């Protein structure tokens, strides 16, 4: 059911193009911050407050949510915005695709084959690694100001210098890590 690189590349390319023609280039990682902000604001309602002085109309005691005139604070206060709904829709689209192709094989739902071949069958071990990896990926993405979507796909598409530098950093670290970690084929 996996598309050939030719068909798949054309499909994905047309989605990138539609996004930038109709709205703006695709991006994902900012929305992890927005969801954190929403959850934090549920626990502490002072996390995001209306502020007529701020450019966005919202402010936060957290310097990151408050940056650029409270841009992120505003999104936390109004979760029904383009960027956040976009990421929820990614989940819906991928879920629909998986459903139509009959779902993911049971053994694959806890870990990929190549992980099992190298590190054994323990789901706990895989989950621990996935959690730490998720932490690194999102800390890195926020430090970089974007992820594989915003920097690599959208950035390189627009000939943004930042996109090439991000891609170099990600592959220069990712390729040796993958080669050293996964010595056995899946």
């Amino acid at each position: 059911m996996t598309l050939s690189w030719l068909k798949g590349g054309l499909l994905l390319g047309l989605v990138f193009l539609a996004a930038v023609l109709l709205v703006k280039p695709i991006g994902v990682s900012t929305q992890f911050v927005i969801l954190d902000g929403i959850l934090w604001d549920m626990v502490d309602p002072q996390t995001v407050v209306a502020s007529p002085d701020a450019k966005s109309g919202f402010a936060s005691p957290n310097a990151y949510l408050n940056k650029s005139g409270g841009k992120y604070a505003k999104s936390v206060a109004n979760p029904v915005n383009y960027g956040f709904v976009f990421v929820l829709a990614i989940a819906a689209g991928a879920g629909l695709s998986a459903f139509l192709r009959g779902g993911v094989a049971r053994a694959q739902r806890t870990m990929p084959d190549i992980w099992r071949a190298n590190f054994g069958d323990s789901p706990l071990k895989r989950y621990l690694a996935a959690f730490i990896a998720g932490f690194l990926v999102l800390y890195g993405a926020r430090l970089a100001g974007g992820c594989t979507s915003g920097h690599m796909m959208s950035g390189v598409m627009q000939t943004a210098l930042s996109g090439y530098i991000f891609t170099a950093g990600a592959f220069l670290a990712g390729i040796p890590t993958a080669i050293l970690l996964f010595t056995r084929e899946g």
Partner: protein
Amino acid sequence: MTTIILAILIGGAFGFALDRVGATNPDLIIGMLRLSALHLMKTILLAIGVASVLLFGALLAGIADPGNLSVKTTHLGVLLGGALLGVGFAVAGYCPGTGVAAGATGRKDALVFILGGLAGAAAFMASYSWVASTGILTKLLGVKATLGAISGTGYPALLSGIPGEWIGIAAGLVLVGIAFLLPDSLRGNSPARKVAKDATGH
């Protein structure tokens, strides 16, 4: 309201496409990074290249709004953050977008990856003032630069003399060319087997 409908349609199409090209399968992501299965590298290079050629063609033809472009700042954090992301990308076989998509396909390790991601994003929020104080976010250029000057945008350009739109079309064609020239594998493992295995789910 229109923007929310567009978010649902484009986001939904993106998620659907990510699953169909195999990007929700960590076997294929890890295979790409260990250079044994370049299926996804060819797919992504072609996607970016085709989108770039059509985008800059549409800008030249005046049918695309240059105001929709959004170029990010180049700074030292882009390189360091990219490297941190690369390590996690290799361990998990997920990035933020494909992690969300894979979680929705029923992969439980992807859901755990998302939880780790929320913790990592929260840690960045907590440490942002310190990170900014190191100057890492302004060193190394600190501007939103593109290869060539793009009409209707104020982004500084690295190269002068040639319109940025033509440079963009050329850069896009180079990516398409690389996608065609890259072999299926650089390490003697057959990616066709992996793709076929993924297709049947066994």
